[in-house]
């Protein structure tokens, strides 16, 4: 395995944090600038030229504002929640390949070789791998995708703790919605990635990039999986149109209602970090990571090569971040039953069918392009089905409610409403 060097590791970690934190800050600025651009406004332009120092001012305010802790909260969990939320978002960055990486060598040696030679060969390959430059904090993590998902699920804890400990009904509603939403969308998210794993045969993100470098990006073969993945991560990040947990017009601030100052800032930081992580993941898993039609191989110098790869990756990621922003300012939000319906009745069946198609294609060694056709076909079929057999608008009928207070005893239930 890779040589363990404290100093290098600390420098890399410090570097990543030093890059990500300002990026998060400027993402908030970008969000406001993009919204201003979409909405025919100017956006922040007072702090520094073009408002470029706005994130600093915002960050300073997070530190300098008083953080009142309401009397009624469960203090430990109340303070723990934002820290959990942010720490988890940060840790997920560990496995993302930022630039040139290579997958770790297979530790299994070929048959019919002397045991000593096997050991020697293993040591050689591993030693070689350890010397190679890897633009990732934790290189060669064989369960890369799983780690990201596991951490993504853990993000629910921050939200649940924050919402429950606030002893506020809006917070509670927000956190319940959020948890139900995140766990519901975790399923299509996972299933859409399984299709990728069936091809790559590895959970290692570097391995997935290598496969795409050889065969072509996964988005070409599994556009439907990419779509499902993208929609799911939007829901995981609580972004519009899935921002119900903090839907301002319904729940005031959702689970954030009682938070202020740095505690609030950490929730936001965690959320935006999550956006960056998922954008990176979309890039790596479906859009070829740092590969761009062989451009990255033109540069042979290792240092410049790493820079070029990093730039390619960052550009692609930036595109997905931009998409996040554009979507937010275009689409209104779902109602909760529609949101759950979308997850359980549309996305999960679609991802199951898609997975089945991938398995069949792999089993019978069909061309990858067959899968593209199936993907598009499934998508269109779902649309046609919805139009032909759907029940009109995706609407929950008004529920019959039992009138409150209780009806007179002995007369059964008084049912009111339509």
């Amino acid at each position, binding site marked *: 395995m890779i040589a363990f060097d404290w100093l290098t590791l600390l420098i890399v970690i410090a570097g990543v944090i030093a890059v990500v934190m300002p990026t998060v800050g400027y993402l908030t600025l970008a969000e406001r600038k993009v919204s201003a651009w979409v909405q025919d406004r100017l956006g922040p332009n007072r702090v520094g030229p073009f408002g470029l120092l706005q994130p600093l001012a915002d960050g300073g305010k997070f530190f300098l504002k008083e953080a009142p802790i309401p009397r009624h909260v469960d203090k430990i969990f109340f303070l723990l929640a934002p820290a959990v939320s942010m720490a988890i978002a940060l840790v997920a960055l560990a496995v993302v390949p930022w630039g040139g990486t290579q997958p770790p060598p297979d530790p299994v040696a070929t048959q019919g070789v002397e045991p000593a030679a096997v050991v020697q060969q293993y040591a050689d390959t591993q030693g070689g791998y350890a010397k190679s430059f890897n633009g990732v904090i934790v290189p060669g993590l064989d369960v890369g995708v799983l780690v990201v998902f596991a951490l993504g699920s853990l993000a629910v804890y921050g939200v649940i703790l924050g919402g429950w400990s606030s002893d506020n009904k809006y917070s509670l*509603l927000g956190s319940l919605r959020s948890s139900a939403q995140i766990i519901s969308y975790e399923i299509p998210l996972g299933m859409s990635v399984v299709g990728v794993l069936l091809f790559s045969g590895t959970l290692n993100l570097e391995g997935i990039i290598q496969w795409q470098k050889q065969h072509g990006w996964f988005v070409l073969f599994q556009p439907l999986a990419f779509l499902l993945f993208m929609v799911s991560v939007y829901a995981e990040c609580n972004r519009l*149109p899935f921002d119900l947990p903090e839907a301002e017009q319904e729940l005031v601030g959702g689970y954030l209602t009682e938070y202020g100052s740095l505690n609030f800032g950490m929730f936001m930081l965690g959320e935006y970090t999550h956006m960056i992580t998922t954008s990176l993941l979309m890039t790596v898993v479906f859009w070829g990571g740092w590969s761009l039609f062989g451009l990255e191989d033109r540069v042979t110098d290792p240092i410049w090569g790493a820079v070029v790869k990093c730039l390619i990756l960052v550009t692609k990621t930036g595109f997905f971040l931009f998409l996040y922003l554009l979507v937010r300012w*275009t689409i*209104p*939000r779902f109602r909760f039953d*529609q949101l759950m319906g979308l997850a359980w009745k549309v996305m999960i069946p679609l991802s199951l069918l898609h997975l089945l198609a991938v398995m069949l294609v792999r089993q019978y060694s069909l061309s990858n392009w067959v899968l593209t056709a199936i993907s598009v076909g499934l998508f269109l079929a779902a649309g046609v089905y919805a139009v032909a057999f759907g029940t009109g608008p995706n*609407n929950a009928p008004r529920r019959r409610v*039992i009138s*409150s207070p209780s009806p007179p005893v002995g007369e059964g239930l008084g049912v009111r409403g339509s």
Partner: protein
Amino acid sequence: MPLDLLDPPADTSTDSEYLYTLNFGPQHPATHTTLRLILTLDGETIVKAQPDIGYLHSGFEKLGEDLDYNQYVTVVDRMNYISPLANEIAWMTAVEKLLGLEITPRCKYLRTILAELARISDHLLAVGASALDLGGLTAFLYAFNEREGIYDIIESASGQRFHPSYVRVGGMMNDITDDVVDKVRAFVPKFQKAHADIARLLNRNKIFLDRIQGVGVLSREEAINRSVTGPVARASGVVRDLRKDEPYLAYPDLQDSFKVVASKGGDCLARYLVRMGEMAESMKIIAAAVENIPSGPVNVDVEGKISIPDKTATYRSIEGLIQHFELFMWNRRWETPVNEVYGANETANGELGFYVVADGSGKPWRARTRPPSFIHFSLFPMLMEGHQISDVPAVLGSLNIIAAELDR
């Protein structure tokens, strides 16, 4: 004033222990102003919605009893502050009916144009806010860009943007300049483009439609029984529009230039579409009216001792000075008949009427308002029952409740 729930919200017997009570407002982002709803919830479903009004009560009607007919204009402005000019014009409709006054044709046209601009600005806010409440901030800001254009027009006409206090008994504060006419002419195509933008952004937006279709359905019978008016009633199939049914101001001349927009749906979508349609119709009225503004004086003759003489007349002629003096002395003012009148206009939100009881002095003895928001807000519990929390802002936005008008 705030309701104190003296008795516990739900009894603690087994079948309602899962119900809980949530305050929705008065300080809530979706209530826009200070409304309060006491929601009894089962999970996210609303079992009972109880409105609690009075948080913005400002004693407007009582103030009306102490202000003369011109002074009260400034207060009427603050009722439905989304479209203040419409309130002023409605108030003057009642007052001039009381005085038996026929205003000049030019004034009629000006008031019509301003009332329609006010209607557009109100509908823009209602449409934008109904999108905003569902998370679509962009449509809201598109709408606000156009409201800005309307403010500019009102500013050039009256010198004030938000609360112009432009209307006076027997006329207007001053005549408009040609500048205003040019601005209105320029506004028409600009607005049509923005209207199309908003329609493109929302009309076929699946998420938006799913959120408002079939939500908060008001049947035609209920609409009539609960004396609902305006776009809310027309969206439920009650085709009643004072501009057509009892034409006032310049509407008799403009009958051919507009149609009444109505729908049978009765849900939030229908209300949204009716408002969008009415904006387009209003634009037609404005386009027709602005080309046909008659010349002549804007105020009725000073001899009638009704309208305030302008500055020239006040300072250069003895009649003007005396007339001005008469109208502004606290114990003189108008000589009114001892009578009771009800005058109503079709404003953006519905029928805004004023019931004026005059005792012969310069001030009304009673100036009762018929606020459409008050009547529409009373629908709310009925519309909400059985829906989900998420539907509260959708329905609230589609009714376009203005708390200042509701509480007066």
